[in-house]
Structures are given as structure tokens and as C-alpha cells.
């Protein structure tokens, strides 16, 4: 039991969830600071979940102006142009989020994610980034890793009916609860994002999720073309298929591991599928709550969801073999 006790008001509001994760976890949550960047469907869902859960503060970053497309899975912004004209998506979301839970400090951080320095990330306990380039994912992850304190790092990528979450908790110890009440400390070591996506395809776990491979192809394609996730479409399929062949040949694996229909769907990812956003935002919320409270087995280190078959899969991809 560390720090001050929960106030009466907090105990009343959080009653049901304290019954799930305990008062000490709730206290840790209420002292935590979270940063999110890229306010699209699944991250909007995540913000709602984490504000309701009662974190100390939430900082949101997204300077884009509101477009119809950006609102396709957004329930924080009223559909009323007079309200949002000229204001960034973060500014508009901030107001609704504050409303969800007056005990959480929600604020907007302006600026380009890739320009934030190491010290900036040091202000947070968890950093969640979304809709950004491969280079940004790598660089933000590296900056978080340079800090003395552990900053939990998450990337989210929702495309059409598919989604990927990557988690880096670095060296993480937590209380594992086995059947009954038996508890013991558990140490898990996470690879960086760069390491996790550089694993040789031959040394991946057996029957690894096809989504892991397909996402790497798409990511690579965007990097080579210098385009953002929002700037690709199904018209790129032929070129993506070409890249798939090259990568599969280089890694000596069969192209059939990455089916065309899956690539096709990932390329259609502009408009979000709200049920998938709800699911991913929910899983991500639970993971961040676990990481902050130090309670419960954390996800290591990828989560994939495909609404077509309904499976939500965890993959542990951490062997840092980088040849090839």
C-alpha cells in the first residue's frame, strides 16, 4: 500500500473496477501519465477506456484538422461543422474526454510526434502511438528505451477489418497470480520494435499469424514509397505483391503465407471498422492498465485481430535473429 488513500468520491465512482483489480492498482492508476498520438478509432476507444479507468493524466497529440473520413469511427466529436471548424482533432476530443471523468487531467500537446525529444517521453508512464510511419514507430520506441525510467510503449495499427498491437515493456516485473491465491514475481524481457520486426521469417513461431507477415510487407512498402498509411490503396496491390515475392524469396518462405485477399484488405484500411476499433481499444486499455498496476500477465509482444475469422491472437516474436 503506497501513497495516499483513495478519496470517498473515488471509491464510489470506481467501486466496480476496484472489485476487479483492487484498491492499490487503482491508486497506481490515478498517479499515472499517459501519452497518445494519432486520434483514430481504436485510439479514441482507448482514450475513453483509460479516462474512465481513472488515470492521473492523459495527453493527446494530433494536429490534424477534422475531416469526414477522420470522424468515421469517432464518437467524441459532435457532427457539427460550426463546432469544429479550424480546430485540431486533439482539441475537439479533449473536451469530450474531460467530460467523461472530471478526476482525470486531459490536455493537448501540439507538435509533430517525430520531433519530440527523449525528455518529453520521460514525462509519461505509457506511450501509445497510432497511424504513423515505420520510421516514427522505430524512433519513438528508441527514445522511450533511452530513458532511465521504464516507459511502456505501444503501437496500434488498424486497417479495415484487421488490427495489430505491438507492446514493448522493456524489462518488466509483475506479480503473477497462479490458480488460487499463490503469487510470485515474474520478470519478462521485451525486444524493441526494430528487433521484433527484424526476426528472420524462418525463425518465427510455428504457424505465426499471417497478419504479422502481411503487416511487415505493407509497412516496408510504405517506407519504400515514402507514403503514409493513409496514402495507400488497393490500386497498389500489384506492387505490394511484387514486394511480397521479393521478401519471401529473401527469407526462403512460401508466398502462400501471405494471401492476396489479406493484402487487399490491409490496403483498404482508410475507413475504419468501428467494431474492430472497439475491440482493439479495449484490449489496449486492459494492457495499459496491467502495465501500470503491475497486476496480471501482460501481452507479449504482438496482438492480432481479424474480424473475418474472429480470432484475437497473441504472438511472442522476440528472438533477435537479424541475418538476411
Amino acid at each position, binding site marked *: 500500500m503506497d501513497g495516499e488513500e483513495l478519496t470517498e468520491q473515488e471509491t464510489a465512482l470506481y467501486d466496480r473496477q476496484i472489485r476487479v483489480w483492487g484498491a492499490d492498482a487503482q491508486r497506481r492508476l490515478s498517479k499515472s501519465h499517459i501519452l497518445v498520438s494519432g486520434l483514430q478509432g481504436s485510439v479514441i476507444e482507448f482514450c475513453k477506456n483509460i479516462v*474512465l479507468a481513472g488515470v492521473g493524466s492523459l495527453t493527446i497529440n494530433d494536429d490534424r484538422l477534422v475531416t469526414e473520413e477522420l470522424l468515421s469511427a469517432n464518437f467524441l466529436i459532435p457532427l457539427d461543422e460550426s463546432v469544429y471548424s479550424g480546430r485540431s482533432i486533439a482539441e475537439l476530443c479533449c473536451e469530450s474526454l474531460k467530460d467523461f471523468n472530471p478526476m482525470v487531467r486531459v490536455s493537448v500537446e501540439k507538435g509533430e510526434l517525430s520531433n519530440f525529444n527523449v525528455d518529453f517521453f520521460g514525462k509519461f508512464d505509457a506511450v501509445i502511438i497510432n497511424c504513423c510511419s515505420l520510421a516514427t514507430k522505430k524512433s519513438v520506441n528508441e527514445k522511450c528505451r533511452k530513458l532511465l525510467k521504464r516507459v511502456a510503449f505501444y503501437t496500434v495499427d488498424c486497417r479495415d477489418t484487421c488490427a495489430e498491437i505491438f507492446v514493448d515493456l522493456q524489462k518488466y516485473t509483475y506479480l503473477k497470480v497462479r490458480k488460487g491465491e499463490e503469487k510470485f514475481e515474474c520478470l519478462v524481457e521485451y525486444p524493441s520494435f526494430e528487433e521484433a520486426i527484424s526476426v528472420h521469417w524462418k525463425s518465427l513461431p510455428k504457424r505465426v499469424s499471417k497478419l504479422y507477415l502481411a503487416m511487415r510487407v505493407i509497412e516496408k512498402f510504405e517506407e519504400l514509397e515514402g507514403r503514409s498509411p493513409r496514402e495507400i490503396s488497393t490500386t497498389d496491390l500489384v506492387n505490394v505483391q511484387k514486394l511480397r515475392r521479393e521478401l519471401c524469396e529473401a527469407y526462403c518462405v512460401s508466398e502462400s503465407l501471405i494471401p492476396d485477399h489479406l493484402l487487399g484488405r490491409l490496403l483498404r484500411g482508410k475507413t475504419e471498422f468501428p467494431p474492430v*476499433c472497439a475491440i482493439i481499444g479495449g484490449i489496449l486499455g486492459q494492457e495499459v492498465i496491467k502495465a501500470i498496476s503491475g497486476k496480471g500477465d501482460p501481452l507479449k509482444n504482438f496482438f492480432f485481430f481479424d474480424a473475418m475469422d474472429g480470432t484475437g491472437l497473441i504472438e511472442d516474436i522476440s528472438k533477435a535473429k537479424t541475418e538476411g
Partner: protein
Amino acid sequence: MVGAGGIGCELLKTLALSGFEDIHIIDMDTIEVSNLNRQFLFRKSHVGQSKAKVARDAVLKFRPHINITPYHANIKDPEFNVDFFRQFNVVLNGLDNLDARRHVNRLCLAASVPLIESGTTGFLGQVTVHVKGRTECYECQAKPAPKTYPVCTITSTPSKFVHCIVWAKELLFAKLFGDRNRENDLNVRSSDSSISSEQIDDVFERRMDENIEKYARRIYDHVFGYNIEVALSNEDTWKNRNRPRPIYSNDVIPAELIGQNGNLEKNSVLGDASSVSAMASLGLKNTQDIWSLKENSKVFFEAVRLFFAKRGKEVGNMIFDKDDQLAVEFVTAAANIRASSFGIPLHSLFEAKGIAGNIVHAVATTNAIIAGLIVIEAVKVLQNDTKSYRMTYCLQHPSRKMLLMPVEPFEPNKSCYVCSKTPLTLVVNTHRSKLRDVVDKIVKAKLGMNLPLIMHGSLLLYEVLAKLPSPVTGGTMLTVEDLQQELKCSINVEHREEFDEEKEPDGMILSGWSQPPLEENKDKTVVENGASTSAASVATSLGTEDDEIQVIPTQIGNKRKLSDISGSALSDHSSVTSETKFIREVEEIEDTDDLVMLDDGLSDSKKRREQ
């Protein structure tokens, strides 16, 4: 949509974003403070208002052009009949109790409307699809009955804290502050017949002009001291049990000290009856603390004092309510004193409140995930993509790498009395049983019928307070029908002379209604739950018509069955609980990377193929 609570709020939002444009939503509940941590469409300023209506208004802000029709009503009201259900393409349940779930299942079957059913508890959840003729209905698998306890466990031999809570809430609280005319098993049966029950009852009556403290001490000494001594005199009871210790008030708090505890002024300043609190006047702050026997005794005395001093008008007609602070304090203290007596670990008020109020664990994230899964299934149903229907489990620990586990739905159970019209069997003493008992204990309590009719051939045997009419004997077939649910089932009557009072307290046994199909295989947890309906004697005599203990996500359905209310922490979510227990069983299957057929033994003839 049935339910605008935890799942309901998430579901309405996700439906609206996904492009659903004509949604009807029903919920009888109003908003409470403890909803606000996850029912994100509601604000503090909405407390007390209709959930369905506020949810509608909140969603229209970001999707103003869709139609949402709210109903602040009980789904079991007669206006929601089969014709009402027929107007929908699909029905989505976000309910919190078995009764309403069964009711909606029957109406969906009668109206031939697909139903998507859901439930969550903590990090666990499930979504199932029920399409008449294609997949099993909600009642094809036995639903574990809410946990109930034998009367003697509660009155004489408690071994768990929950037994003490049931005793404190259903017996002691009811006796002191509730309706005195209600049957109450508070006094242990004494072999000493010289004390008539009427004399005992006088003990609980506050005598004319009796000092409150004196009265409270008298009660304390009677229930924690004298009653335990009486129980101890039945030597047989304690052969294989730890003997309880009688506790007398003077040993815990010497008489002259009382009165110094309470701070009368503090409370009288507040004046508001609902804010009267023994904790406040004793300076106890943290609801998570576990009080000592002495502290519990002080709370006990102070709570009794405050009830009579500040809320005297309510004494005699109170029903326990988890949101009544003083009632929760009294029950916590009484349960803890009893627990000390029986060597059972004491609990905090926070924990005691959860047990006494049947409070179900709930977080926003699981509800959001489950809502997403419901919408995915709803889209399939609307596209008539029957091959893709899945039931999905949301797990806490991955099973074969899966956190969200889809499973192909089961086929309808051919021996289900709800969707396959298979006759049931009722073993009953046809000479002595009352039709009223058949209606109450069987037709309403077990078959979940709302407005039943009973027919024998073309003869209507309605609810009459009489012996079963003579033509009903062993071998007779009765027809029981609920006109609202459009459910009709046949019951074969078998005669039996004697019933075991302890094991068969109903005096009759119904079989075929919750056939335990899992009994022979390894899913033992479900069997334990399922079996409790018939084996354990239901604490019906403890029953109050308490529909206040319902909590989240939404309460739809009015009176709960008598057997529901004997204090199980999870009875509302019994179906979820059973499924999640089942999941744990699945998780134990060896982790393998192979795409396997899930062990068929899990459910007799039905395949659960992994997707």
C-alpha cells in the same frame, strides 16, 4: 437492444458508428453513480434519469441522423409481446440476469428473430448467436442455478463468510428492521421444547420505553451468545466441525463504555436520513479496513441505535439495499461478529457490501470488446452469412495463444424443452400437493414463466388453492403455457409419496428442464453449479422479495426468483460465470500450436471446432 447498461452503452455507440440507423433500446433502470466508471454515455448530472433515454440523447450528438427509440420499461412487460419482437431483424441482449435472458430467448424463438446474447464479468466475457433451427437457443444448455445454501448452514453451521452475510442480511436484518410477520428462521431449533417460538420472538421486540442501548445489547447477547450456546447443546452437530464460541457484549465492550462511542451531534447536524452512518459517528473512514471484533461490535450497537433514533419510521418495513450505507454497516458488523464466533476470517465493509449486494465485477474495457464482437455477429446475421456465425469467448489468459476465441455455434439441443418442445417430468405427491406450489415452485421458479396457464387436456386447471384435481395422478400429462412468451411445454406427472425435507424442500422434483448434459464429462464446475438446484436445499424461507440487490450492467426483469436471493455474490451473472469456468477448463488443455479439434468430451455429441 435489451439493456442500456455496461454492455448497452458500448453497444449503442458501436452500432451507431457502424451505420445502424434504426435502433430500439429498452432498459427499466435509472442511472447510478457506480455506473459512471464504465457507462460512458452517462454523466453525474444524469443520475436518477432513464438509462435508455439518456443513452439515446448522447449517441445522437455524434450521429444526429439515425433513429433511436428508447423505452424506459421492463422487457417482461406485456406490451413487449411476440408482435413487438417480430418488427426487428435482430435482437441484441446486454442483460444482467438469467430471468430476463430466458424471457427474451423465448420471445425471439416465438417471433423467429435471431438473438445475440452477451455477458461479462471482470476481464471475461462471451458473445453467442441464437438462430431458431440453426443454432442452439439460450436455454439448450443447462444454466447453473444461482448459488443457494441449505437453511441449516445459514442458521447453525456457517463455514464461509458468505454464510454469515446471508444470515446477517436475510435473517437478522430482516428480523430487526423488516416485516415482523414474515417467516424467519433466525432462532436455532432447540431440543428444549419448553420455549415456545412466540416467547423467542418477543426477544426481538423492543419493549416499551426500553433504552436503545439496552435493547441492542439484549439482541447482541441473544444472537451471538445465547443462540450459539443453544446450538452447541446439539452435540451431534459438532462431531466433525469446529465448535463456535459464544460472544457476549459485556466481554467485548463493558457496559459502562458504550455511549461514549457514538457522537450523537455529528449525525443530528446532518439531519438527512440517507446519510446516517455508524462509521461516520465512530470516526471509521476506510471501507477497505477490516475491523476488529470490538470495532464491529461498536458499529453494531451504533447502527442499531441510529436506526431507531434517526430512522425509526422505517423500522418494521425495511428491505436490505446495498446502497443504504447504514444497512450495509449493520450487516457487515453482524456478519463479522458471527464470523468471529465461528472462526471464519473477517472482511472489510467494501468486501461485505459486494457479497451482500451481489455486486458484479465490471470494467469498461471488457464491455467495449464484447460490444464490438456483438456488432460483428449482428452484421453476419443481417447478411444471413450463417456459416460464419461464431460464439466468442473473451479470455483473461490466452488459450493456445488466443485471447479472443471464436467457436462454431452448437446445433439446437434436441431434448431442450424450450426450443424442441421435449416433455418434462414432474415427480410429485399427487394426493397432497397444492397446484399453487406447482405454479410457484416449478412453473415460475424453474421454468421461468411469467403468465402461466396450466391445462390438462382441454381442461384449464388454473391457479387454485386446492389439491390437484382428482384426474391428475401418476401418468397424467399436463400442458403448461405462457401466452406472452408463446412457450408451451408438456409435463408428465409421476406420483411419489415422500420427499426429503432437506434435499427436496419443494416437495416435488422436476426433471428435463435443466438436463445436466455435462454431468458425465469433465466439466465438473458446471455440474457443481447445475446440481446445486436440486441437491442443495434452497434457502427459500430466507427469501425476501428483494429486487434491490440487482446491480449492473442493467436490471431488466422485476421480481427475482426466491432461490436467487440467498446471497450468492455472482448469482446475477451465473450464466457468465458458468461459461467462464468452462473456459478455464478449456485453457487447461495442453497448449499446442496445432490447429486441433477441441476435445469432443467437453460436450457430448457436439463439436466445438476451433476456428
